[in-house]
């Protein structure tokens, strides 16, 4: 790391465990924890809620909760990110409970696209397929959705996903395979 950068950010070289312990006593250290994790937590919430506005709201709440509960946080060998994901997951679950209908449309409207050269029928079919796939993903258990977000949106390797989820690499491969299998079966059951 360049010296100037190290001088600007004295926490950059610290291991996560050391940083967490320091953040319990030093407010500024929590800023480094935030910088290390905010993008992933935001991505996770964005793909679980389908809305950028909700993702911002819940990301802010997740980090405020993490800060409040940090003095009682104990390192059990599981990455700090796993604790943050649990907070984010609980917030998303409460969010879905408090909204009578899931906001399925906003993300889909954002993502739906087809090549302009495609015929209207093909575009419509492609969009229908995307909707069906999103719905099938959202019917999967939380850990499978998280795996897909980490694998595809965050572009993590199986080993890195294993570290984040507190599982071995082979367990992640197995979970990924089961997820694909379940999605395929779900889509086929609905005529796709």
């Amino acid at each position, binding site marked *: 790391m360049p010296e100037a950068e190290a001088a600007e950010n004295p926490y950059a070289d610290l291991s996560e465990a050391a940083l967490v312990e320091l953040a319990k006593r030093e*407010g*500024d250290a*929590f800023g480094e924890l*935030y910088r290390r994790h905010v993008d992933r937590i*935001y991505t996770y919430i964005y793909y679980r809620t389908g809305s950028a506005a909700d993702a911002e709201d819940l990301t802010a709440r997740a980090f405020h909760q993490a*800060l409040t509960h940090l003095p009682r946080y104990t390192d059990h060998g599981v990455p700090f990110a796993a604790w943050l994901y649990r907070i984010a997951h609980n917030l998303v679950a409460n969010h879905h409970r408090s909204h009578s209908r899931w906001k399925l449309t906003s993300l889909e409207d954002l993502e739906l696209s087809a090549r302009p050269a495609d015929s209207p029928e093909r575009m419509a079919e492609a969009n229908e397929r995307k909707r069906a796939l999103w719905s099938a993903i959202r019917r999967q258990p939380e850990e499978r959705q998280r795996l*897909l977000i980490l694998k595809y949106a965050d*572009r993590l*390797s199986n080993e890195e996903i294993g570290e984040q989820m507190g599982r071995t690499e082979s367990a992640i491969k197995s979970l990924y395979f089961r997820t694909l299998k379940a999605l395929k079966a779900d889509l086929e059951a609905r005529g796709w």
Partner: protein
Amino acid sequence: MSVSRIDFLPSVLFSTRVPAESHAGDMLSVVPYLALARELAALFTPVAPRPEFRADLERTLIADARRQSAESVLFPVAIESREGGERRWVMVSAAAAAAVGSAVSIAGIVVYVLRRRDRAA
């Protein structure tokens, strides 16, 4: 598996951005699901929070974190006693619930014994 299918695999894997360290054996087991994996890769595009949101939240959190740290240094006893108070409250609640549970059980046994005595009489 046909040769053409095997030749097709690397390009598909590249486009689905499956990590490079994956083994050929693992790949073969997911062949029937490659098209689905490709669709998933197209659906989950990387996203990032707005820079203004990111910066605002960082400022707010650091300010709150500094305040929290200062409080814990200035009033450690108050915070400990508050946490201790919460623990005490949980213990008292549990003890009260246990006492009520025991009283109900004893009352049930007494009623049962009295009814049996009445029937016998």
